[in-house]
C-alpha cells in the first residue's frame, strides 16, 4: 500500500493525483504531498530510523519517493552535525544553544537535501532532464546530483552572472543556459518552459516533492537531541518554503509519537531575514500579516527573495507557534558570520550571518531564559560568500623570520611554559 496519496492545495484543499505539477488548477495555490499517516506509522519507528543510513534517507518513510528496491540519488547528504555551542552560548546567555551545521553537506548547503529528494523522485518518474533557475546554492546542488544520477542537467542563469559564481556549478558539466535578462526574467522563462518541456524543474513543477526534503533538517535535530524537539528554532527565510516544511516536520514527529513527553511540544519557529530584503519580517509587524514584495538589496544573496512564495504562511506559523520574524542590518550579518566563526569554529555564508545576527539580537533583547534549548539552522558554507569579508581582518605587520623578532612582537604570549609531553630543555636535562 502506498504511503503517498495525492497532492493537496494548501489554499482550497483540492486534491489531485501525484504528478509533476506545483499549483492548484482551481485557485493557483501551492500543492503539498498528502501522506497516508496510518501507513507511515506502521512502517516508521525510532528503531527503523536508527537502522537506516547516516543521511536524509534514514527518514525515507517520511519522504515522497516510493523507492521499492531502487536506491535514491544520494551523495550522503544530511545527518549533519548538531553542535552544542557553549562559547557562543556564553556570549548570548544561552546554556543550551545548538548549531545545526548544514554547511557540511556535499555541495556545502542545505539544498542538497531537497535536490536529492527531487532528483530521486524525478528519476523514478522517468524524467531524463533535471533543471533549475538559480544563481547559487540550488544550481550547485542540481548540477552535482544530475551528474551523480547520470541525468541531463540544465541550469538557467542571467548572462551577466560573475564567472566565479558560475564555476562551482559549471564544473559538474550541466548545460548552462545564459539568458540576456535579469533573474526575474530567467525565472519567468522557466515557468513558461515547464508547460512546454518534459523536464523536471526542481523548484517549479516538481516543487511539492523537492520541498519535502527540507523536513529532514528538523527530523535530524530532534533525533540528535535524543528524540526531543527544542524550545525554539531560528531559521533563515528566503521563499519561506523551508520554514513551512519545518513546521510540518515537527507536527509529523509529534503525531507519529517519535518525540514524546516534554520533548513533544511544537517548537517556537522564528524566522531570520536581512533588513535589505525583509518582506516577511515587515509582514510580521503588520496586523494583517500581508507580505508586500520588495526589491532586494543585501549581501545575503542566497536568501534575497523579494516576493517570497510562502511568506504569508511563515507569518501565520511564526505567530501560531509563538515565534517571531526579525531582521538584521548588513553590518550585523557580517558580525554574525564572524561571531559564529570565532566562538565555535564554524564558517557560514551570509545567510548564516543573518541567522546568527537575529539569534544574537533576540538573545540580547532577553527573549530566552538561559536554560532554554535553542537551535539555529546554519544552511550554507562561508566559502560561498567569502568575498564579503575582504578587508575586515586587520593583519599584523610582517616580521623578520627570527625568534627575537617574534618575541619582540608577541611578548608575553610567546613565553611558552613547559606543557605535558613536551619538555622545555634545561641544563639538567639537555643531553650531553
Amino acid at each position: 500500500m502506498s504511503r503517498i496519496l495525492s497532492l493537496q492545495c494548501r489554499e482550497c484543499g483540492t486534491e489531485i493525483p501525484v504528478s509533476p505539477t506545483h499549483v492548484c488548477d482551481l485557485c493557483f495555490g501551492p500543492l503539498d504531498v498528502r501522506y497516508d499517516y496510518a501507513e507511515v506509522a506502521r512502517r516508521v519507528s525510532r528503531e527503523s530510523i536508527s537502522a537506516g543510513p547516516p543521511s536524509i534517507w534514514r527518514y525515507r518513510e517520511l519522504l515522497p519517493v516510493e523507492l521499492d528496491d531502487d536506491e535514491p540519488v544520494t551523495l550522503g547528504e544530511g545527518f549533519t552535525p548538531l553542535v552544542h555551542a557553549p562559547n557562543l552560548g556564553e556570549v548570548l546567555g544561552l546554556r543550551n544553544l545548538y548549531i545545526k551545521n548544514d554547511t557540511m553537506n556535499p555541495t556545502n548547503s542545505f539544498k542538497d537535501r531537497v535536490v536529492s529528494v527531487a532528483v530521486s523522485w524525478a528519476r523514478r518518474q522517468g524524467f531524463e532532464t533535471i533543471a533549475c533557475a538559480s544563481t547559487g546554492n540550488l544550481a550547485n546542488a542540481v548540477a552535482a546530483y544530475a551528474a551523480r544520477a547520470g541525468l541531463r542537467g540544465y541550469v538557467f542563469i542571467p548572462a551577466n552572472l560573475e564567472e566565479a559564481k558560475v564555476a562551482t556549478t559549471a564544473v559538474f558539466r550541466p548545460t548552462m543556459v545564459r539568458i540576456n535578462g535579469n533573474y526575474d526574467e530567467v525565472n519567468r522563462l522557466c515557468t513558461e518552459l515547464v508547460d512546454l518541456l518534459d523536464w523536471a524543474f526542481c523548484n517549479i513543477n516538481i516543487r511539492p516533492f523537492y520541498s519535502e526534503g527540507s523536513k529532514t533538517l528538523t527530523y535530524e535535530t530532534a533525533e540528535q537531541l535524543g528524540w526531543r524537539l527544542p524550545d525554539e528554532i531560528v531559521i533563515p527565510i528566503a521563499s519561506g518554503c523551508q520554514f513551512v516544511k519545518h513546521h510540518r516536520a515537527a507536527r509529523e514527529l509529534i503525531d507519529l509519537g517519535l518525540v514524546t513527553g516534554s520533548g513533544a511540544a511544537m517548537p517556537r519557529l522564528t524566522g531570520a531575514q536581512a533588513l535589505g530584503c525583509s518582506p516577511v519580517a515587515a509582514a510580521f509587524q503588520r496586523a494583517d500579516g500581508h507580505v508586500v514584495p520588495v526589491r532586494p538589496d543585501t549581501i545575503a544573496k542566497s536568501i534575497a527573495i523579494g516576493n517570497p512564495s510562502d511568506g504569508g504562511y511563515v507569518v501565520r506559523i511564526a505567530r501560531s507557534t509563538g515565534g517571531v520574524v526579525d531582521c538584521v542590518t548588513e553590518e550585523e550579518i557580517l558580525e554574525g558570520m564572524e561571531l559564529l566563526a570565532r566562538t565555535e569554529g564554524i564558517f557560514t555564508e551570509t545567510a548564516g550571518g543573518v541567522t546568527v545576527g537575529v539569534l544574537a539580537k533576540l538573545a540580547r533583547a532577553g527573549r530566552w531564559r538561559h536554560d532554554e534549548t535553542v537551535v539555529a539552522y546554519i544552511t550554507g558554507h562561508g566559502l560561498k560568500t567569502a568575498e564579503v569579508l575582504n578587508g575586515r581582518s586587520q593583519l599584523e605587520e610582517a616580521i623578520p623570520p627570527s625568534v627575537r623578532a617574534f618575541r619582540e612582537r608577541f611578548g608575553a604570549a610567546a613565553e611558552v611554559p613547559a606543557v605535558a609531553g613536551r619538555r622545555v630543555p634545561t641544563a639538567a636535562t639537555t643531553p650531553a
Partner: protein
Amino acid sequence: MARRRVRLTFSPRLVTEPVIHQLGSRFAVVTNIRRADVTRDEGWVVLEVEGEPDDVERALGWCSELGVRVDPVEGELAT
C-alpha cells in the same frame, strides 16, 4: 495561444483603479481571476491572462509600466 498565471500587487495609488478591466479592453487578452485580497489601501490578485503571446506580453508590460508589480503566481522560488 499563451497563458500566464500571475500575481498582480497593487500599491495604495493603484488599488482603486480598474486595471484588470482595462487589461481586457486595451489588449486582446482574457483575464480569469482565481484568488484575490484587496483592501482599501492595497491588494493582490492572482489571475490567468490568456491570448496570443505578444498580446499577453504587451498587456503585462503595460501593467508593470503603470506601477503594478507583476510576478509569476509561484512567487520567487530560489536564488
